[in-house]
């Protein structure tokens, strides 16, 4: 029972969704299932959120190193919960949209989460540079090709490309770097993308089948019984 029912559920749901593609009256069943997923995700959040609280309270109570930060995390979590669930500061009260302008929830998003998100994202610029310096080496043929392609696209997308190769006559304009960059995007890049996409498609089909048929069942904790 413990073992067969989950396997059957996976098989049934998976097969139903595949068949639904061909049966017009139930072709919208995927929407219903997506809704189920969203609802399950909310319930699961009790586990996730609960875990977050547990971990940090644990640190706090045991006075572990850096417990202050756990306090801050818990405080932020609680603040956001109260602001959002009770819609504090919303003009329309509890009936208004939670993200209404002027509400605490939205204000905190704008002035705290927003700069944090953007800055964390922006750190990428630094990492791109250090990776370029350290890792993009013409170690072998493959790496060299990657480098050359990256180089042409980089140059082509900036005015430097035109500055470097603007002297090439128009009849050979394809060799001007910006044009070459576009040409590569539309040819070799496209070819590689397609091969990867077809491969991924087959990989997904195969893995999904393994899951639906119950060949792959590690996620259910079934292995080795």
């Amino acid at each position, binding site marked *: 029972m*413990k073992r067969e029912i*989950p396997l059957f559920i*996976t098989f049934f*749901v*998976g*097969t*139903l*969704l595949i068949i639904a593609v061909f049966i017009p009256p139930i072709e919208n069943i995927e929407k*219903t*299932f997506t809704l*189920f997923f969203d*609802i*399950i995700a*909310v*319930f699961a*959040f009790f*586990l996730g959120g609960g875990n977050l609280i547990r971990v940090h309270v644990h640190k706090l109570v045991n006075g572990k190193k850096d417990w202050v930060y*756990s306090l801050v995390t818990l*405080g*932020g979590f609680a603040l*956001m*919960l109260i602001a*959002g669930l009770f819609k504090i500061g919303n003009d329309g009260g509890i009936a208004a949209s939670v993200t209404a302008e002027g509400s605490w929830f939205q*204000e*905190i998003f704008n*002035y705290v989460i*927003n*700069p*944090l998100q*953007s800055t964390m994202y*922006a750190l990428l*610029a*630094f990492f*791109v540079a250090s990776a*370029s310096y350290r890792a993009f080496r013409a170690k072998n043929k*493959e*790496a060299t*090709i*990657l480098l*050359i*392609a*990256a180089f042409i*696209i*980089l140059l082509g997308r*900036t005015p430097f490309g035109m500055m470097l190769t603007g002297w090439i006559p128009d009849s050979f304009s*394809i060799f001007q770097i910006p044009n070459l960059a576009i040409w590569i995007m539309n040819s*070799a890049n496209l*070819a*590689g993308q*397609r*091969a990867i996409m077809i*491969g991924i*498609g087959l990989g*997904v*089909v195969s893995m*999904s*089948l393994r*899951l639906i048929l119950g060949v792959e069942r590690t996620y*259910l*904790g079934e292995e080795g019984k």
Partner: protein
Amino acid sequence: MDHFSLWLAAFLTLGIISFLYKDNPWYKLTEAIFIGISAGYWVVTLYWDNFYGKFWVNKGEEPTLWIGAFFGFLMLLRLIPKVGWLSRWPLAFIVGATSGLWLMNYFASNIMVQVQATIMPLFSTGYGTGFDADFATIVANFVIFFGTLTGLVYFFFSKEHKGAFGVGAKIGIFFLMITFGASFGYTVMSRMSLLIGRIDFLFGDWLGMIQ
């Protein structure tokens, strides 16, 4: 933006940037704020959008939604060790739904569409247009054709990359590398502009040094 919110945003921005120097109390504080606030943000969003908006409001009209809620409830049974195994049901449901959905979607959009898109005449700009392609387009067509084929050869699992097959796979990996190079070239650009955005905030909006 008033003074407080500007300074708060700047404080948090610099806190994150300080990580580049090394892990430090400022970063740890920023990180703690980030985790707490954003986790709270998501609970609230999930609650209002998914639970309230998708379930609570519509549960009368669409009784099937109760199945979703039931699965969600089973998920919570994890907290009771004795019946914890029941939480595998919703997991099984999710895995089944994801597999079924993605199988057909990927089959159609990644395999069928891409194969069909690659079937094209080599000396023309499109099907049925005659010899109308210029040299660059013809070369591009050949490149797409051979690149896609050899790229696929690279991914073969049941054949050793040896002999003629190995040569194909080798050429294939070259094409994959060009794709990665192109992605890299493009990506770098995007990443840099994000940093520019932040610096514009710091020196423009905050300190008013640039226009």
